[in-house]
């Protein structure tokens, strides 16, 4: 029951993508390719949902990519060629992601694709990128347990977000009892599995861990929150690790405020709540609840200030927030530019070979590096929600001197994956088993 014709291809730099999207829907026509520009441009695919449930998060990333491409063109493009964005709308529809990816690579002949948000959408496009041998930059924190030759993961792996956050709570808040609360799909389930194994390895007994899942878009949190409250009244310091995703967050935090759970009693650390998500909530009752990311808009570096300024100018909206996946695209895009310049070619194989080892300054004062496992090194920040909807970094003490953590594709805490290693440079393998010394051990 899908109107598969909701698609559109808007012209490059078109700020009227929205109108086009709406009219595309109205007409129900599959319009494509006004973008038959001159041969001296290089096309870049942007595969983010502009309609449907995920539009809330992904639209911003499309805008961020348009800004980055625009900026690069002002600097003269890459290898003397202008870049041209090709925007498609996979409409939060997972199979459509694969269709649109195929269209981008075969019809539009894009050199690289920046896109996807949810893990299901990434899993859906993987076979396409493998088959057609193209490049995908994936900018969102995810559950790990994957490393593909054609994909570069610029978001955080669990060891760059979830585990440091739990460490912080253990050390700073002396948390002894844990609620792992998540939306019921692959990212929270895998992350919670890793966290459960990690907590148990740190000596937390099973009765002090409560794992709970709710459906997508869940809005009646009364029972769940009072369950958390009861669990937290066992006399040990309790914290909630939230992998709640998307729209369900707002009613969740509202209910926390309603039931008077303050951050000083039961802190909530979230992995999917950023500046963007907080924009729709009154944050005063939430002050002190935490989020773990690799970037916060509030981090005060010259690079970040310049980026924010440019973003406001580009979107013509001085209030528009920046967030972590935007920074991931910033890093990923610049790494791709550098790799192309290093390889002196846009050919995907040459660029894939050139990417590992590329270094790019991130926006928080460090330099991230693309690793042989196609993940990058990132700093980890823990921020507390403030009354103005921004985050106040509480760990590390000086955000500018944060240590960079290399992304680990295969978790060390899961029995199936702790022997696996990913190395596309020397081993040429995404899941090399260190015990059996074979490539293609166990894959997720």
């Amino acid at each position, binding site marked *: *029951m899908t*109107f598969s014709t*909701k698609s559109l291809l808007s012209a490059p730099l078109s700020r009227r993508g*929205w*109108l086009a*999207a*709406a009219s595309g*829907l*109205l007409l129900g026509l599959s319009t494509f390719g006004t973008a038959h520009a001159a041969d001296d441009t290089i096309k870049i695919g942007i595969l983010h949902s*502009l*309609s*449907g*449930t995920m*539009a*809330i998060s992904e*639209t911003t990333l499309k805008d961020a990519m348009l800004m980055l491409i625009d900026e690069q063109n002002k600097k003269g493009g890459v290898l003397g060629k202008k870049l041209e964005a090709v925007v498609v709308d996979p409409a939060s529809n997972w199979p459509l992601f694969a269709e649109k990816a195929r269209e981008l690579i075969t019809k539009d002949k894009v050199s690289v694709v920046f896109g996807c948000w949810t893990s299901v959408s990434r899993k859906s496009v993987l076979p396409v990128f493998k088959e057609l041998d193209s490049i995908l930059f994936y900018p969102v924190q995810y559950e790990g347990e994957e490393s593909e030759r054609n994909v570069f993961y610029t978001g955080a792996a669990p060891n760059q977000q979830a585990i440091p956050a739990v460490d912080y709570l253990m050390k*700073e*808040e002396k948390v002894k009892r844990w609620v792992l609360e998540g939306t*019921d799909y692959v990212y929270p389930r895998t992350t919670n599995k890793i966290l459960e194994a990690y907590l148990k390895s740190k000596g937390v007994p099973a009765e002090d861990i409560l794992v*709970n*899942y*709710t*459906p997508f*878009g869940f*809005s*009646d949190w*009364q*029972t*769940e929150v*009072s369950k958390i*409250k*009861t669990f937290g*009244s*066992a*006399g*040990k310091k309790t914290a909630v690790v939230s992998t709640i995703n998307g*729209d369900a967050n*707002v*009613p969740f935090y*509202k209910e926390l405020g*309603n*039931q*008077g759970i303050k*951050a*000083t*009693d039961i*802190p909530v650390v979230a992995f999917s709540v950023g500046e*963007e*998500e907080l*924009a*729709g*909530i*009154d944050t005063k009752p939430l002050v*002190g609840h935490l989020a773990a990311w690799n970037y916060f808009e509030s981090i005060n570096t010259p690079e970040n200030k310049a980026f924010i300024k440019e973003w406001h100018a580009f979107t013509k909206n001085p209030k528009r927030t920046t967030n972590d996946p935007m920074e991931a695209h910033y890093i990923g895009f610049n790494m791709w530019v550098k790799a192309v310049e290093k390889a002196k070619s846009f050919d995907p194989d040459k660029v894939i070979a050139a990417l590992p080892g590329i270094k790019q300054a991130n926006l928080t004062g460090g330099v991230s590096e693309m690793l042989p496992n196609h993940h990058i090194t990132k700093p980890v920040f823990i921020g*507390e929600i*403030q*009354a103005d909807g921004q985050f*106040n970094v*509480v760990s590390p*003490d000086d955000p500018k001197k944060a240590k960079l953590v290399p992304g680990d594709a295969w978790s060390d805490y899961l029995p199936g994956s702790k022997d696996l290693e990913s190395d596309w440079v020397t081993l040429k393998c995404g899941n090399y088993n260190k015990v059996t010394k074979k490539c293609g051990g166990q894959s997720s």
Partner: protein
Amino acid sequence: MSLCSSLSSRPRSRLISRARWLLAALVVATVALTTPSPATAAPFEDAVALFAAGSFSDSATAVGELETSGHPRALAIVKALQDGRLFADEASKAVFIKDEAGKTVNAVTGEPATMPAEANVVRLNNRLRRRVEAALGSLTLLSPDPATRIAAAQAVYKSRDPAALPMVEAALQKETNSAAKSALNAARAAIVLFKPDASEADKLAAVATVKARGDQDALALLSSLPGDVPRAVAESANSAMATIKSRLALWSMVQDAWYGLSLGSVLLLAAIGLAITFGVMGVINMAHGEMVMIGAYTTFVVQDIIRTSYPSMFDYSLLIALPLAFLVAAMIGILIERTVIRFLYGRPLETLLATWGLSLILQQAVRTAFGPNNREVGNPSWMSGAFDLGQISITYNRLWILCFALAIFVVLLAVLRFTRLGLEMRAVTQNRRMAASMGIATARIDALTFGLGSGIAGIAGVALSQIDNVSPNLGQSYIIDSFMVVVFGGVGNLWGTLVGAFSLGIANKFLEPFAGAVLGKIAILVLIILFIQKRPRGLFALKGRAVEA
């Protein structure tokens, strides 16, 4: 503020602070070389200057010093720190307070001062925030306002800081307000229970006090007792815990029932418009959720205008939004009926597909106009907060929504029963040809009925904007539930919708604690499917010839 607490023994923090004083004295000494300032290294001033050091632990030390200093400015400074109005300049070690009006005063002297541009707000983390709450608690125990005293006693109850015991006892002596007295007693009991050198008799009395309190906090306190308490105390604590637990279990039933009613009212709100368009008219209206969404966005627009132009009217924003949401949604409903649905009567499959397409168009139109992000719709003051009923807390917004849902139901029932429009609607839906031959303009009635259903959905959107996200996807999350309620309750019967909504809500909430949210929902769906097998026309089936029409 009494001085006695400063005599309490806290050797470690004393030592640390002494070291800090030494450091501070050194700083002052070096400053004194260059500036002719009166270098009086008073402890209070030095403690305040610690806020300028920038680290959380320095700030925590400073708060501890202020708590026991007995200085008249201490309360103002700690309060400012809690509210994020305390600023510190790292270079000059000067600390400032900004009041609500934006004026700055020197934190130590309380005199107006100009703050240097480099001064930063003193940062807080949760550990420091807890420290601040505890300090504020012991600083405000003797406040003239009983509500402040109760809050202070609760803060002390949570922090169980032995240093606050003399203050609590002093406050107890003077206390006349009974609520404040019991809060203070509980605070005293909490401290005594965790004080290693308190006598066994004192501790037993403390257990009894905490038991009388009987809430979740009491349970938390008792279960975190240290292992080295005397045997008798541990035993009485265990029996107290058992009593509290069984009492709380009873209350949790009441709580589940309340949650069920509240969920039921939300379901009723979402479904009641559909009970008209689908239940009465028989149109499978997949765009029903979008009418709810349009109502919610109308509320947003109204609030936005009020916020920018008439901020004092904010508390009335929902009352203003209600008729507007009804009108906007009803207009769109009538437009849809006239342009699309009227050509599709009697063709349910086409109607389903067409209205589903319409729902996508409406969603994307809203996304285009307002952006894909959530919009903030505020709670008016009369809908914020909660009150306690026994051991459960009831939030005002849920209570109002319950009342509101019932009110809409009654009004709708009255419209159908007592107005001419209602009479004609029933006539047309029961026997269209007969109604037409009686001179009723059936096409007009169709449009108005659809408009009424849509308008009611719009009104529901105003209420739902208070508890859910106002985003283009708002409607989607309610469409399935709405159909479930209407089908379960019995198509064509408003009472069925009412009973259906509340029974589904309550069943869901009683299942959720055992089965979890995901399984609970599945269980409800399975139950409905089984029920429909048994009674295909729902709870309240229409009987007679009207059914076949």
